[in-house]
């Protein structure tokens, strides 16, 4: 059903693998669309309790496939039609989303990683906001997320100088949850995803909602929404399970509802 990506749901984890390894998983319009569709599918699926986006081969994603770019291209329209809807789908999703950055994440590939909730990087991986090198600006929500994550000054450096950010630098900047030795990468990603998939999924969704609202709502409105969120969480089976398990001193088994 998908051609440029692979989608698998296994043990509560939805794996989305960017699968154009000979092009370093560069974006073509079809891949934008398929990533968006896969995200929507996983977000709607009660059995998916965690989403992982990774790249096949040695790169995570090298950004826009430049062989698709010609002088007639309306760059704004490409964003409106393809990249915007894709990153919006990530924003709308209430499932935890992990970017498994196995290799270089350049341009819109970097943007894709920034839009996720967690970024786990291989020690060999790196980011590069390469747009400036072709006279363009970081897109697909890049500056929105980057400035939130590292502050305006650092975001300006990364975007204007366009230098490579190594995995260790990314860790220092808060752009990586952890850095993983290359040989352990797949196993550690699987373990991390499994851990996330066993958490109370509904509560994670509500936390994501709260974090979004923290940036947009006035404090009093935020408190009102927080109360609604806690009311919703308080009605979940996972909340009851958590309390029961705590009382009987056992490990809780959450079902994500």
């Amino acid at each position, binding site marked *: 059903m998908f051609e440029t990506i692979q989608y698998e749901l296994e043990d509560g984890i939805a794996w989305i693998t960017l699968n154009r390894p000979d092009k370093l998983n560069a974006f073509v319009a079809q891949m934008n669309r398929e990533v968006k569709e896969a995200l929507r599918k996983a977000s709607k699926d009660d059995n998916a309790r965690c989403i992982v986006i990774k790249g096949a081969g040695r790169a995570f994603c090298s950004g826009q496939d430049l062989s698709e770019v010609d002088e007639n291209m309306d760059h704004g329209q490409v964003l409106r039609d393809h990249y915007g809807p894709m990153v919006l789908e990530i924003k709308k999703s209430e499932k935890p989303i992990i970017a498994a950055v196995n290799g270089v994440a350049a341009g819109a590939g970097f943007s894709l990683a920034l839009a996720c909730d967690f970024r786990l990087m291989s020690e060999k991986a790196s980011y590069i906001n390469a747009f400036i090198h072709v006279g363009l600006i970081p897109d697909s929500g890049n500056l929105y997320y980057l400035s939130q994550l590292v502050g305006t000054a650092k975001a300006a450096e990364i975007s204007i100088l366009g230098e490579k950010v190594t995995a260790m630098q990314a860790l220092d900047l808060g752009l990586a949850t952890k850095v993983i030795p290359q040989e352990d990468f797949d196993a550690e990603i699987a373990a991390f995803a499994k851990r996330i998939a066993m958490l109370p999924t509904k509560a994670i969704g509500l936390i994501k*909602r709260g974090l979004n609202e923290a940036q*947009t709502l006035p404090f009093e409105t935020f408190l009102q*929404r927080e109360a*609604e*969120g806690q*009311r*919703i969480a308080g009605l979940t089976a996972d909340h009851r399970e958590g309390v029961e398990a705590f009382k009987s001193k056992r490990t809780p088994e959450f079902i994500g509802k």
Partner: protein
Amino acid sequence: MTVYKFIETSVDQRIGLIELNRPKQLNSLNREMVREILEAMQSFDRNDEVRVILLAGRGKAFSSGADIDEMAGADSMSLELLNQFADWDQIPLIKKPVIGAVHGFVFGGGFELALCCDILLAANGTEFSFPEVSLGVMPGAGGTQRLTKLVGRTKAIEWLWTGERIKAEELLKHRVINRIVSAEVLHEEALRFAEKLAGMPPLALRMIKDSVNKAVDYSLYEGMQYERKNFYLLFSSEDQKEGMQAFVEKRKPIYQGK
């Protein structure tokens, strides 16, 4: 209680609930359904057990708009003779507070129905739109009038021309809706709001609604005169005596709606 075909009604704790119930058609409004909504509202308006009316939709959407199949073959004269909007015209005449709790899609006629409510709560993520233009027509049940009076010409004409989807946040900003609440607790929050109103003095609510509605059409001078008469009128109510007595005695008033 009357059995309706396209809506469900119930009364609990002085709140009269009307739920649009054509979920498979996303609560698209046919003429009979609008008639039922009006009749249910009128019956609640006369029912002493009901102090507040709550309007909501079952299923994925509040309402996706008018039933197009019903209209596709119409011509001007048949519409004039049918006079279907006579039912619509009576909805704003309901005297009791009408709270709308909307979610999912609120399109076309559904949006117009929502605009007839006194208080509007929208679930997070609700999308509104007047898509009539894309069918070569325009709103016919107050869309161009009520929306414009609420938000002004600038945004009204943009939204009505483009038919674009409007997010709840945008409508909150333009003062079309009162509050956005999390979708999961929309009903609960709407009930909470309704309960709060149900504990207020009904005649005061009634006269306030009456006066506020006049503010839309009257000149300021006429509106002020109208307000004054309603103000005086409330001094004929037992609730006014009770309210002021309770204030003096530093206790909670109990309002009878008399």
